[in-house]
């Protein structure tokens, strides 16, 4: 049996899937419905200062006919009073004692205000608090959200105010709209946070309508940047999560989010160090029901691979992260086309020809087409010239048609950092060429 339960900085839940603090966790009705569907936890939609929303809050990027590659919003924190939210949090927790109910908070940057709302939140019986230092729009202009998250000193200071009085775990949610995510992460550590949530949404303008010339979404002709999320941001989130996970100064549990749509995404985040994963955009697209496949898919995968708990896989891929200077320069590959699978679309040819190293030839070949004979072109790789860049492998639409085949025998390895210790400094082109030549690497 696979055990999916987690403990994220003191917050326990039966599975790692939490709803992120966002529109799906706006009310007790929604959160209870989500728990009914099987979600392990929910971070309540941020509660705090009085706000009022506008209409047309969302914008999306569709790609090649697929809807919502990315979703952006200019919705603010909860537009319902603090009392209403706290009452519903309390009721929900009573109904669902085994699930993680986390309150997300954002108030003005005053010690008393923060400490007051933290105390009132603890009274609800919820499992933890998430500090929203991330919202990039609306609240940041009022000195909250990302305005805090972007300044490590504020981040540390407010976290400290909260942890001074909190009797329950405190997670700090980071904004990705910074130069180096580790600095606010370290500030959270300094403020004695129990864990870190990331990433919040990314500053974006979604597009310009080519008929009206207005931004999308448009609020009576005006618009501005909003917070971007969804499948498109996942690679950015994976990088930032891994940076927090490997930073020796931080060492805190991570609740990861940013484009988690399926169990596969979740598994990747966990492999890069996450304890819980939070989901929003995928639910906004398809509803709470996606949890069924998330739990089942993750369980099946773990069973097949022989993992028994999430502790077995957490951070398992972090050891593969290396700086460029530590990559093996003598690991050599070539692309190889399986002609029995090739459909002669020649996308590999044109990609290599125009954008890589001109090492694919196309040769005329006869093809039968319902009784007619066509002369088509068959691509072929000149392996001696191939630099193994992998572009053809990436553009090929047929699974298993182009593969990257290792051509060195693995007997020698050399990283840039090692090489620089060997070669006279500053390194010259001539010295580098000699090294390449010695190892059969010719750059045309």
């Amino acid at each position: 049996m696979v055990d999916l339960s987690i403990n994220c900085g003191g917050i326990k839940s039966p599975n790692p899937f939490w709803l992120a603090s966002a529109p799906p966790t706006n009310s007790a009705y929604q959160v209870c419905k989500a728990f009914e569907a099987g979600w392990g936890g929910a971070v309540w939609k941020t509660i705090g200062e009085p706000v009022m929303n506008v209409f047309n809050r969302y914008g999306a990027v569709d790609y090649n006919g697929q809807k919502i590659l990315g979703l952006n919003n200019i919705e603010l924190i909860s537009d319902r009073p603090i009392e209403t939210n706290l009452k519903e949090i309390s009721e929900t927790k009573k109904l669902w004692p085994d699930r993680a109910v986390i309150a997300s908070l954002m108030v003005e940057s005053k010690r008393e205000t923060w400490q007051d709302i933290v105390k009132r939140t603890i009274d609800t019986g919820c499992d933890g608090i998430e500090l929203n230092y991330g919202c990039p729009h609306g609240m940041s202009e009022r000195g909250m959200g990302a305005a805090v998250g972007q300044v490590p000193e504020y981040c540390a200071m407010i976290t400290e105010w909260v942890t001074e009085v909190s009797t329950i775990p405190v997670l700090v949610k980071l904004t990705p709209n910074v130069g180096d995510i580790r600095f606010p992460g370290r500030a959270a550590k300094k403020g004695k946070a129990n864990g870190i949530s990331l990433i919040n949404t990314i500053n974006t303008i979604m597009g310009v309508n080519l008929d009206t010339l207005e931004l999308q979404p448009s609020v009576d002709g005006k618009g501005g940047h909003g917070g971007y999320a969804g499948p498109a941001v996942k690679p950015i989130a994976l990088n930032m999560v891994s940076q927090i996970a490997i930073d020796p100064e931080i060492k805190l549990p991570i609740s990861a989010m940013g484009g988690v749509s399926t169990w596969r995404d979740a598994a990747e985040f966990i492999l890069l160090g996450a304890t819980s994963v939070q989901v929003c955009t995928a639910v906004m697209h398809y509803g709470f029901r996606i949890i069924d496949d998330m739990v089942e898919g993750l369980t099946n995968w773990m069973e097949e691979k022989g993992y028994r708990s999430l502790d077995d896989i957490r951070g398992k891929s972090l050891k593969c992260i290396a700086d460029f200077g530590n990559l093996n320069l003598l690991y050599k590959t070539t692309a190889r086309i399986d002609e029995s699978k090739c459909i002669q679309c020649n996308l590999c040819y044109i990609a290599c020809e125009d954008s890589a190293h001109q090492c694919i030839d196309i040769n005329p070949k006869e093809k039968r087409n319902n009784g007619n004979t066509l002369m088509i072109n068959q691509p072929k790789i000149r392996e001696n010239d191939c630099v193994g860049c992998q572009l053809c492998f990436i553009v090929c639409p047929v699974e298993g048609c182009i593969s990257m085949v290792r051509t060195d025998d693995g007997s020698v390895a050399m990283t840039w950092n090692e090489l620089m210790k060997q070669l006279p400094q500053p390194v010259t082109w001539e010295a580098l060429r000699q090294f390449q030549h010695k190892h059969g690497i010719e750059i045309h």
Partner: protein
Amino acid sequence: MKNIAPKLSPQDYEDNFAELHPAFMPNSAVAEANRCLYCFDSPCMKACPTHIDISTFIKKIATGNLKGSAKTILESNWIALTCAKACPVDVLCEGACVYNEQGEEPILIGRLQRFAMDRYFEQGMPPLFTPAPKNGKSVGIIGSGPAGLACSAELALMGYDVIIYEAKEKAGGLDTWGIAPYKMTQRDSLNEVKLVESLGVTIKTKTRVGKEISIDEMEKKHDAIFVGVGLASPTRLGIPGENLEGVVDALDFIDDVTTRKWKSIDVGKWIAVIGAGNTAIDAATEAKRLGAEQVYMVYRRSEKEMPAYEFEFELAKNDGVQFLFQTAPKRIIGKKHVEALECIRMKLGAPDKDGRKKPVPVPRSEFKLPVDMVIKSVGQNIEDSFLSQIPNLKTKNGMVVVDQQTYQTTNPKYFAGGDCINGGKEVVNAAYDGKRAAHGIDRFFFSK
């Protein structure tokens, strides 16, 4: 006719003649366009007789550049809407789509081409090409079918004065008069005619060359002449009873149906269609859809030798047409009207000169089909009497002999293309011939 099939309700007619392949909704067109891999030097382009840059026009649909998409299509093929609707795409572009190699559905190229062309015509044909300055040469075009139209459009762009002479009251040739209404409408073909006219081409309808204008006059008036007359008189069956009332030629019948005046077209209750080419299938299917109770297709050879495309055969079968293979008509029986068709069973003997097994009658296997109407579709003859008026024009097996590169005939002033040089192929072949012939004409005048 002895028994005329009862007329249908207006709704039944509309349902029966609704489009087989309806237009894409804009979002589904974009979704389908995005499915296209945008192959480089794509097999579909090579399989198209006019070599339309298919993946490029599809990419332009995906980006919403529909005008550019139409331009890409028209650069290769002036008869693009008709081809989009009437081409046998299964054996041409779509048959060559790389998705077939993966066992996936090919891109619906015909329907996407139609999407781009429909939009272009809906927007009133915004100009896409600028004709070159007039070069002082004049070309007369005989026949306004796809070959003639394509030749004219191309010549007009190169600066020629072009006049098309068309015997019928509407231009477009078989595109207008010969394509089943569930594939396309006359309006589609007439839109293409208008497009050619918009390039400065003059079309004189109801002007039969040799009647309203003589060959001599044409030769005086024009520096070169393009012959795009197609095929004309249907081949006779050469059996007794061929002149009885109720015996009709398939093309005349289809011609009536393209007018879409369903109610005024009488069809027999029971019908025999003789032949099994694509035209025969059209006639049989249309007759069935007009209300005929029973339609037989009578064909001398077996299913394997049948010239009709697979999808046409399926269409007819689904419409309930009954196929009598290895059956030949012997005589048509009746006093004034057709009352029956006497047939004889055939068996397949040794291969003939085309390599097809020659059908031979099975003795004493005659039987009678009680029918009210016989539709003949056993091929067309070239318009020999007309072609023989042109001096030094050589023909072979009824087809005009042309140079494969220049489309010049044995009379240097004359060029030819379309069915009259190939004996009857697809619209797309005619469109290509016409275009190539235009360049042949241009080389004739201006190459050193």
